């Protein structure tokens, strides 16, 4: 059996969707034309699906991660993927006002913040593990 994709490869797999969004968004002079709206709306749907699916995969992998560093890196990379999408959408959502780009921007921003929360929690836990903690407060795992 072939090994499954790691989190870096999963996130990389979503990059072509972002490139397509940028390419299609830049290819029309008038974003309000029906042809432009149809083409851009299609890419918006693809990017939304890509962000949601990639996030799901990372959440599954994070549960099985071997270390807090790995957890933090997964969410950092996923957050960077969201940030890339946000930068593209920020430059195009006004050009295509009726294609769902503004709504997708808000959604991806919320996903980015969720990634940041998870990365920060992992880093905080890692830091706290290096500080003294009294015995007997928490149950011990054998």
């Amino acid at each position, binding site marked *: 059996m072939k090994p499954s994709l790691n989190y870096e490869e999963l996130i990389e797999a979503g990059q072509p969707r972002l490139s397509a969004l940028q390419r299609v968004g830049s290819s029309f002079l008038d974003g309000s034309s029906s042809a432009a709206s149809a083409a851009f709306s299609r890419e918006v749907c693809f990017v939304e699906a890509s962000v949601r699916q990639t996030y799901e995969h990372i959440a599954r992998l994070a549960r099985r991660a071997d270390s807090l560093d790995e957890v933090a890196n997964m969410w950092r990379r996923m957050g960077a993927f969201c940030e890339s999408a946000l930068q593209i959408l920020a430059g195009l959502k006004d050009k295509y006002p009726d294609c769902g780009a503004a709504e997708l921007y808000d959604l991806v921003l919320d996903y980015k913040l969720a990634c940041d929360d998870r990365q920060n*929690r992992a880093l905080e836990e890692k830091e*706290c593990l290096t500080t003294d903690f009294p015995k007997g407060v*928490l149950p011990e795992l054998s």
Partner: protein
Amino acid sequence: MPDDGLSEGCVTRAELAELAELFDRFEFALDPLSRDAEEAEARFNSRVQFIFEEHIRPRRPQLSFVIFRARVRNLCRVFLKKNPP
């Protein structure tokens, strides 16, 4: 010792199992914006705060809540790896 490999502390095994279930529902939620994830996170934070105020602070006044909460979250991760949902 119970089958889940835990010994009792100030936080009980039952409390840890409950917290781990809540932690799983928001930390590893497939949709982080779902109502279930938001409710689970709010309940988790509320329960951790309650346990700290009721059981930990009176016995360990020098222990900070931030460190306690981070330790609880980390123990939940370990618990979930040993006891997958």
